[in-house]
């Protein structure tokens, strides 16, 4: 989903943050690898080790799964015995890990810079937005340590900063269906359908995770079929914020004039 990276880079650049890509990173593993082996932490630790090798103290994530897996890995790596075992395996790759890297999901990164974001808003949006909270960014609350784990407010506040109106539809913390797709495509599309039916009043769907965007945008035609009244545009958080910052659509991974 290159457009997610494009928009994230554009918005963070406007806030004075430059991103550097983690070369040779693997899939974080969520939730697949952990479903097969208790050794999932070795793969997550590899990715954290790459960040440490780059000399960075923070990794920015734009997906709930990566955020959750990497944060929990960093936590369990505080156990010196496990860390030693992991480092033993990483040694042949010339890597080592301390687990001290901070994992920051884009929602959190922006929420922690609310005033800076507000100061950059030059083009308030008159849009009605239905949001879905990225499920793995806020829980488990004692490990993620950010926002209210059961009723998170940070994404809503960010959307409101853009001038857009948040449409309450009751499904803000319901499943987009993406992870369900791995086990049951039928249930996954039913979850997506439940959302599309509930957000009729909104101009667009707003997501803070690539998985939500995948199911509700790219797979939307599998849900809608010939019920064209169910169709709904879907934007990613940095695309919405970027539009309100007055950044050109083309710099936000949006095809000009066609995303509405």
């Amino acid at each position, binding site marked *: 989903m290159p457009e997610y990276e494009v928009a994230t880079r554009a918005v963070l650049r406007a806030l004075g943050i430059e991103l550097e890509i983690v070369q040779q990173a693997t899939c974080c593993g969520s939730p697949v690898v952990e479903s097969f082996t208790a050794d999932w932490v070795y793969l997550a630790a590899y990715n954290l080790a790459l960040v440490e090798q780059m000399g960075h103290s923070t990794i920015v994530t734009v997906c709930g799964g990566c955020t959750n897996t990497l944060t929990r890995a960093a936590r369990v790596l505080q156990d010196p015995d496990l860390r030693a075992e992991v480092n033993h395996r990483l040694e042949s790759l010339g890597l080592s890990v301390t687990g001290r890297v901070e994992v920051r999901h884009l929602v959190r990164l922006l929420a922690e810079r609310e005033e800076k974001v507000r100061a950059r808003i030059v083009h308030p949006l008159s849009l009605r937005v239905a949001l879905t909270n990225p499920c793995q960014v806020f829980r*488990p609350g004692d490990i993620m340590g950010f926002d209210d784990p059961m009723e998170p407010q940070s994404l809503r506040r960010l959307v409101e900063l853009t001038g857009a109106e948040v449409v309450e539809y009751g499904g803000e913390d319901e499943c987009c269906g993406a992870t369900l797709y791995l086990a049951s495509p039928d249930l996954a599309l039913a979850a997506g359908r*439940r959302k599309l039916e509930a957000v009729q009043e909104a101009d667009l769907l707003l997501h803070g995770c690539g998985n939500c965007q995948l199911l509700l945008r790219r797979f939307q035609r599998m849900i809608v079929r010939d019920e064209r009244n169910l169709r709904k545009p879907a934007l990613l958080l940095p695309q919405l914020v970027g539009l309100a910052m007055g950044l050109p659509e083309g710099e936000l991974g949006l095809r000009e004039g066609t995303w509405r």
Partner: protein
Amino acid sequence: MNHPDECLQCGTCVTVCPVEMVGGHAIVTFLADPDATDYSVWLCTSCWRCQEACPGGVSIYELMMEQRRREEAPAGYRAAFESVLACGLALQVPQEELDQMRAAWGLEPTRLPPPGLARALLCAEDGDRW
């Protein structure tokens, strides 16, 4: 799967589960009713809502993952895991195609992980159950 002693069978987990909301039955169905058979731990979406809300403090996520490792996986999970082992990514994208996708949006090329790296890190041998 053993029903956890700390579970009060209060059903709070069922009320907050997004899978139950769309008519699926995940691990929470079993927690609320240990005699239930019509549920699958593979339907869990890893949203952690049940564990967050559980008044008994049950480590539902860990229970769910442990049970998954004892069971055959659905095709979607299996395919994604095989792909991670082979190329490090859940969905395989050839380097050239990735570079083209990125270039279309003006993004620099990135280097994919070496083949076999994930398999080695996870110490998976050919013929392992997983």
